[in-house]
């Protein structure tokens, strides 16, 4: 039972990090209907800046610069590529972001080289003990941050003009322009915010239970894909729920690996995808996603 609780706590805490990454996907998807594969490299950029600067300017300043840096880079991607692309479909744009991701990741991993970079966070390796269960403080922080940000975005999308403008632009940028929406600003803003979120997510992805940022950090972002899809690509709530489900699934499947040896060891990494497939079979647009409307 203790093990179960511990695994559950672990799962929830990792899930919070996935949720933060997934939120980045969701925001860009809502704003531009693009599945942003370059999110992983934004993560790397944010983390890289923090790692490089924390020693000289202190952690919090470095974090701010990292967030700003990733936001600027994301805005640049929007400005230089997304805005200018004249594509026949959003899938093509998604593939274009794969191209961007490859370029950025290649260059960044070249910069990072073989190093494992610490981010200099204040939590270090402290853990929080809740009875017999212990959770890393970084993860508690991640959970709180994720919950706060996700709620904030949920409200923002629904109730602010910014949210309305963003969704309008996503659906039909020409008509949105007729409403006086500045398309450039809106979608660039969304990208910048997603970039900033990526830096925050990178922080939690690269601190304590993991040793630091290195070239393989981007792979961790892959797990946020099933999280985002499972929850529904256009739902902020979905990002949170999806992240948690993926985190918990992964933790339980890894933790009970011995009991499930018949599924093959290492099932912990595959299980999130299996869960996603099952959910999609029942709900093709994820748990909270809006079903595509069909009428003629």
């Amino acid at each position, binding site marked *: 039972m*203790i*093990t179960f609780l*511990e*695994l559950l706590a*672990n*799962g929830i*805490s*990792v899930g919070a990090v996935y949720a933060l990454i997934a939120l980045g996907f969701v925001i860009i998807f809502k704003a531009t209907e693009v599945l942003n594969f370059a999110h992983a490299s934004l993560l790397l950029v944010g983390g890289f800046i923090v790692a490089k600067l924390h020693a000289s300017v202190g952690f919090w300043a470095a974090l701010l610069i990292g967030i700003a840096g990733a936001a600027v880079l994301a805005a640049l991607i929007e400005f230089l590529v997304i805005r200018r692309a004249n594509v026949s479909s959003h899938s093509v744009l998604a593939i274009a972001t794969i191209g961007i991701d490859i370029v950025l990741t290649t260059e960044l*991993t*070249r910069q990072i*080289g*073989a*190093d*494992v*970079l*610490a981010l200099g966070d204040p939590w*270090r*390796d*402290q*853990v929080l003990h809740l009875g017999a269960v*212990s959770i*890393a403080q970084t993860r508690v922080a991640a959970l709180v941050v994720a919950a706060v940000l996700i709620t904030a975005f949920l409200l923002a999308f629904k109730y602010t003009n910014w949210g309305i403008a963003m969704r309008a632009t996503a659906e039909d940028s020409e008509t949105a322009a007729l409403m006086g929406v500045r398309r450039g600003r809106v979608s660039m803003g969304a990208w910048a915010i997603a970039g900033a979120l990526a830096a925050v997510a990178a922080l939690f*992805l690269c*601190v*304590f*239970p*993991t*040793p*630091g940022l*290195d*070239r*393989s*950090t981007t*792979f*961790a972002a*892959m797990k946020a894909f099933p999280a985002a899809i499972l929850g529904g690509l256009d739902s902020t709530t979905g990002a949170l729920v999806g992240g948690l489900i993926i985190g918990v699934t*992964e*933790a*339980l499947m*890894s*933790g*009970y*690996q*011995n009991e499930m*040896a018949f599924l093959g*060891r*290492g099932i*912990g*990494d595959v299980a999130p995808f299996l869960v996603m497939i099952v959910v999609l079979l029942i709900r093709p647009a994820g748990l909270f996603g809006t079903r595509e409307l069909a009428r003629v």
Partner: protein
Amino acid sequence: SEKATGGAPAASAVGSDGVKTGPGVTADTITLGLMTDLTGPYASFGKSLTQAQQLYFEQINTAGGVCGRRLETIVRDHGYDAQKAVAAYTEIGPKSVALAHIVGSPMVNAIKQRIEADRMLTIPMAWATGLLGSEPIQVTGTTYDIDMINGVDFLVKEKGVKSGDKIGHLYFEGDYGESALNGSKYAAEKLGLTVVEQKIKATDQDMSAQVAAFKAEDVKAILVSVGPKQTASLVGVSLAKGMDVPFVGSNSAYSPQLLPTPAGPALLKDFYYITGGAPISSDRPAMKKLAADYAAKYPGVEIDSGVSAGYAAAGIVVDALKKACESKDLSRAGVVAAHRSQSAWGEAFGTTMDFTTFDKPASLLSYVAKPDKDALGGSVIFKEAAVSDLAKEYQVPVG
């Protein structure tokens, strides 16, 4: 047609000096291939290997070369990608007499058939058991399973693990992890221990769930056959969660780059790794000279285990070439034959290897090394090389 094909066995010829030559050998040059990882997950290791080998060949050339010929290298980066390795082999294979190193067992596996067909002396920089059993392929020192057997032995003898205990083993999917697991399971069975397995992928970063699982089973020690990053996470999380047990890693589980990270202190506490090759900080004259030469040639470059491993591998190849020259046969087959005639190689580097058989590891001797902030290469010998009785009895699965 002057077409050079990779497929057809190139004709052997006899040079003016009466030495039989084949692909990769001309009247005044000998070409060696290096298939390394400069852009993939083992980039730093690959870089050290390559630089150390180039240093070695340069030294040999300065001293007059081998068999009156200069040594030349062709380096190809496969980035830990099997297809690139196959492509690279097709390119450089026909031009090389031997492969002074190739990083990663998946890559070796991918071209194994061709290496055997070409009878190309090849030194893998990987220690999976599956690489044994092939005449031209020479795994240096111990394999991962031997290391783990010696590691379990070390735990029982010096770390208070006793019969009936459980030990954890965290390992990578793939031949590295699974061949290490073979060793630990064998040793555990012999010593009355139970192994709690946790298999992960190279992309996993956070070992919290695995630690929880180990903790639930109340393991008394943990074996680690993963990458350095996962090691750091595992060790760090374990200590933070109050699971204070000894850790014993395979030689690829540790890297000095981890010491400055938050996991550094945990690694310094109770972590050891097992290696067939002596760490570069060991006080053998050969190692000291290598460290000095390397620092002179590549000033400011960090030294890690790749330097000594690569240098020794280069030595193996060059000695095989020298021996082949003595018997006037520098064809690939000649080089392999010459290589296989040596039964006690490498005293100077601290591990004596027997190359005459190829279905057994060249050595059963493992060092226990321990991270050390101040030491060259980030580690020191904790326990001199030794063979456990278990390892001697162990039948290596070959195939």
